[in-house]
């Protein structure tokens, strides 16, 4: 069964409609990716899921409709959103950032244990735990953002362009960690990316967006072999 199921989702900023009724799904335990160029509506899609823009249509999480819920309430269901631009609390320490990630989760659980696990995935954050988060490099801040999302103990992780502006080596490292989080912690992932090569390698299901519409969908392999996708997004 699909963990997240979206049907005919529309979203608008003021009077301008930017999503014209898109449908997609994320399987329980799966990794889905939404590809597309700048301005295709990828970020808006994630924002719509979390009630950050005005939306219509149907969003079902774990069988329940969550359309129109407030952001905080969506998060509290176990949907971690790693936003575009990373959303770092720059004046707080690394560890405080992580503690905030655990703020909205349903069961408080063992915070120390979860911190330890987050540091295990991202050892560099352990070294910098008492440092102000604003002093971290871009890559470290992206890791912090993913780790913060992980602190929610989420069932679904929404990742908004984690590769943006980072060195290829750092990006590969982050993607590797996302994959192990998916496998070891059974966290389903919805990844929004411009870097189609990497995203298709990670995901098992893929959607291609152009100007607010899903124009193609299928397994990651299908999209990788599709000529249009190859020419326009993979560049060979």
């Amino acid at each position: 069964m699909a963990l997240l199921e979206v049907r005919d989702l529309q979203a608008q900023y003021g009077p301008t409609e930017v999503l014209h009724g898109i449908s997609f799904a994320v399987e329980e335990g799966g990794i889905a990716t939404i590809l597309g160029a700048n301005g295709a509506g990828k970020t808006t899609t994630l924002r719509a899921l979390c009630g950050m823009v005005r939306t219509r249509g149907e969003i079902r999480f774990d069988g329940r409709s969550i359309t129109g819920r407030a952001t905080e309430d969506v998060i509290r269901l176990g949907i971690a959103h790693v936003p575009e631009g990373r959303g770092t609390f720059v004046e707080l320490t690394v560890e405080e950032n992580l503690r905030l990630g655990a703020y909205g989760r349903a069961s408080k659980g063992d915070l120390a244990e979860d911190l330890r696990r987050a540091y295990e995935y991202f050892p560099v954050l352990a070294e910098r735990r008492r440092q102000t988060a604003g002093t971290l490099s871009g890559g470290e801040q992206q890791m912090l953002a993913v780790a913060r999302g992980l602190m929610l103990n989420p069932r679904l992780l929404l990742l908004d362009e984690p590769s943006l502006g980072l060195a290829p080596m750092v990006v590969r490292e982050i993607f590797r960690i996302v994959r192990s989080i998916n496998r070891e912690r059974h966290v389903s992932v919805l990844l929004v990316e411009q870097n189609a090569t990497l995203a298709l390698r990670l995901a098992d299901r893929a959607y291609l967006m152009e100007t607010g519409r899903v124009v193609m969908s299928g397994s990651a392999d299908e999209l990788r072999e599709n000529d249009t996708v190859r020419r326009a997004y993979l560049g060979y």
Partner: protein
Amino acid sequence: MDILLQQIVSGLATGGIYGSVALALVMIHEATGVVNYAQGEMAMFSTYLAWSMLNAGAPYWLAFFATLVIAFVGGLVIERVVIRPVEGGSILTIVIVCIGLLFILNSMAGWIYSYIQKPFPSPFSDKPLRIGNVYFGAHDVGALGVTLIMLFGLYAFFRFTTLGLAMRAAAQNPTSSRLCGIRVGWMLALGWGLAALVGAVAGMMVAPIVFLDPNMMSGILIYAFASATLGGFTSPGGAVLGGLIVGVIENLAGTYVRFIGTELKLTVALAVILVVLLVRPSGLFGRAAVHRV
């Protein structure tokens, strides 16, 4: 020398009060970007409530803590009812609402309690404390003590509790805070509640010095502005330190600079504001506002 020491301690006592009100201003400013002009009147009104309870025969510390609770809830309710509807509006709108609140609270106090000055008791003995050859006013020392205890309590709350952390987060980055599941609106309301509580402490500590009347806080609010400007409007610790500095400067200037005396004391606050804004607009500890272009 002895007089100098006495004047410094007494300056620190009033400075602590200025610093508290400044802290209340900074807390709300950091969270919402506006200056709450009604902060002083909220403190004044709380002090009147304490006075009512004392008048009805309540023991001092019972009235004190009951007032803190009422002030906290009052601040919370004011944010939810009055500020919330205009939250997304322009800064000017919120400022005007705050000024409206100032006049409403001021007139209400005058209407209920009249404009006649009332003495307000100090919980501390009226015998001066003697340390060596120097005598200190017991209320000065006590008020400074109460202020410091409150400040350490606040510091510990913001530094060590999850709720305090969430409040700091909500003030810094509301969008990210929502994505952590923090109810940002409630954090703002809590901030108003805490600011009102801090103001109430300041009001009850200053009332024995200046007497209780509906306009008691108007001068103090100006000193608080000077303190927050000096310490930096973005720095809670700076605001408190600014308050202590302003308190001492004001007291020493009043004592040693003959033409200032008590009549021109308030001018000192304005002079501080002017000098800081000319020399170092972000204050001693504040961040300079940086905009990416």
